């Protein structure tokens, strides 16, 4: 267990260093949330019940998800282009743990978008940004990272199976914003999409963050949301763990790890 954590930490550190100097990911972490935050602030501020904290939280979540999606989906293809994918897979350390560390490193880097979103609301627009339940919000933020991590892990094995996975996963950026209710309630979506939202950990993360920021739920209500978030995150993690194993075995049998 300690060995696995050490591997994950090293992978996270390496990934952090890589994404921190990537122009494209810096754009995703800094520039894109800026534009999304400013645009949605303008678009939502005429609502009678407008709360700038809602936009700050939503824009921060969108930044976290975009960086995670692009860095996570390109991590395997990046290893492949460097010629190191076979070495990582053949190493005695679990590939799931290595990749989990990479996703964690990406998430740590993308936290900068949370600060940026706060700055947009507080400094650019001059709104008072106050969190009604700071303790609940802090706990929700930690659990939101778990939720996003598990969702990113679900998409990752597809990078081994499918060389052009980045193109497909890039498509998941706005649908996750929408299905998870980052910047508008999911009730605006067609009814048939609601079960999909309920299965997504980021939806519960957004619910917990929005509710704790606005003080809409007491501790019991918040704990219920956290419990569902953790349940869906664990389910996705188990699915992704099996998917990793199955996809790697398939690639090994076919001798197509670097070619698929």
């Amino acid at each position, binding site marked *: 267990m300690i060995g696995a954590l050490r591997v994950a930490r090293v992978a996270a550190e390496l990934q952090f260093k890589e994404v921190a100097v990537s*122009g*494209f990911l810096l*754009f995703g972490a800094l*520039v*894109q949330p800026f*534009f999304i935050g*400013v*645009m*949605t602030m*303008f*678009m*939502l*501020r*005429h*609502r009678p019940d407008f709360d700038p904290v809602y936009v700050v939280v939503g824009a921060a979540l969108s930044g976290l998800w975009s960086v995670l999606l692009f860095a996570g989906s390109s991590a395997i293809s990046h290893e492949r282009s460097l010629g190191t994918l076979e070495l990582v897979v053949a190493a005695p350390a679990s590939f799931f743990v290595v990749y989990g560390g990479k996703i964690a490193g990406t998430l740590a880097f993308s936290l900068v978008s949370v600060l940026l979103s706060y700055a947009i609301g507080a400094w650019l627009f001059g709104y008072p940004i106050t969190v009604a339940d700071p303790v609940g919000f802090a706990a929700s933020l930690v659990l939101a990272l778990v939720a996003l991590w598990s969702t990113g892990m679900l998409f990752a094995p597809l990078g081994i199976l499918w060389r*052009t996975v980045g*193109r*497909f996963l*890039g*498509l998941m*950026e*706005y*649908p996750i*914003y*929408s299905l998870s209710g980052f*910047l*508008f*309630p999911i009730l*605006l*979506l067609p009814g048939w999409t609601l079960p999909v939202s309920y299965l997504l950990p980021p939806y519960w993360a957004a619910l917990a963050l929005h509710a704790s920021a606005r003080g809409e739920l007491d501790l019991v209500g918040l704990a219920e949301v956290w419990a569902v978030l953790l349940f869906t995150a664990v389910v996705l993690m188990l699915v992704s763990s099996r998917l990793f194993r199955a996809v790697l075995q398939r690639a090994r049998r076919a001798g197509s790890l670097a070619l698929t």
Partner: protein
Amino acid sequence: MHLFLVTADYTFRALFHWLSPVPYVINRLLFPLVQLVFFALVGQYGGSQSLSFYLVGNAIGVATLSTFGVAQAVADERWQGTLSYLLASPAPRVPVFFGRAAYHVVDGMLNMAAAFALAVLVFGLRLPLEGLSGMVLSMLVATVALCGVGLLLGSLAYIFLDAILLANWAMFILLLLTGMNIPLSELPGFAAAIGEALPLTRSIAAARLYAAGAPLDAGLGLLAGDLAIGAAYAVVGYFVFGWLETRARIQGRLEGV
């Protein structure tokens, strides 16, 4: 003309990375549609404008994707090692340069048609028949004008390594400042002034007029303005391209930055 057509064909298929149709469908059709749905729903939730304001703005705004294709087509010559062959060839530069945008105009129209189909079928957008010809004209002008921006960005990509990053900047600036999602009157003065100097601003305004049933001549002035701005971007791009080519030859660093 032959050179123009050959350049148009090869740069669209090979330099735009879609020798097979699946990446094309994903990049050019599905991505703009999910973006349109997101901004339309945020706008609907905000409630300051009608839903049709956001649907028409974002359906025309799908043309911003044209800037990616055109910019990438110019910049990828360097990545694929064909830049030196291209610049050493005696081919006249005008068809080589402007040919890169030709197919993207048609492609942009297709993407916008798909976006409007989605807006009509899913969100119930109503487009009056009397405004239809004006709407098609707005789509054409929007995509031509944005190809001008793409050509300028592609030229700049000879000195900036990452053309896609430049195109991403352009896309978000266009999303914010052209009135696609926020009326220009709500933006601070300096931001609205920048918006007025960007292509797409007038095409979107004209498209909204036509979506409300205005006759064709109601938006022609706006469209002429956007066409002129788009042409200005393309011409500046052409001269930047020529200047960088000359500079690279003199300094002997064709593949450098």
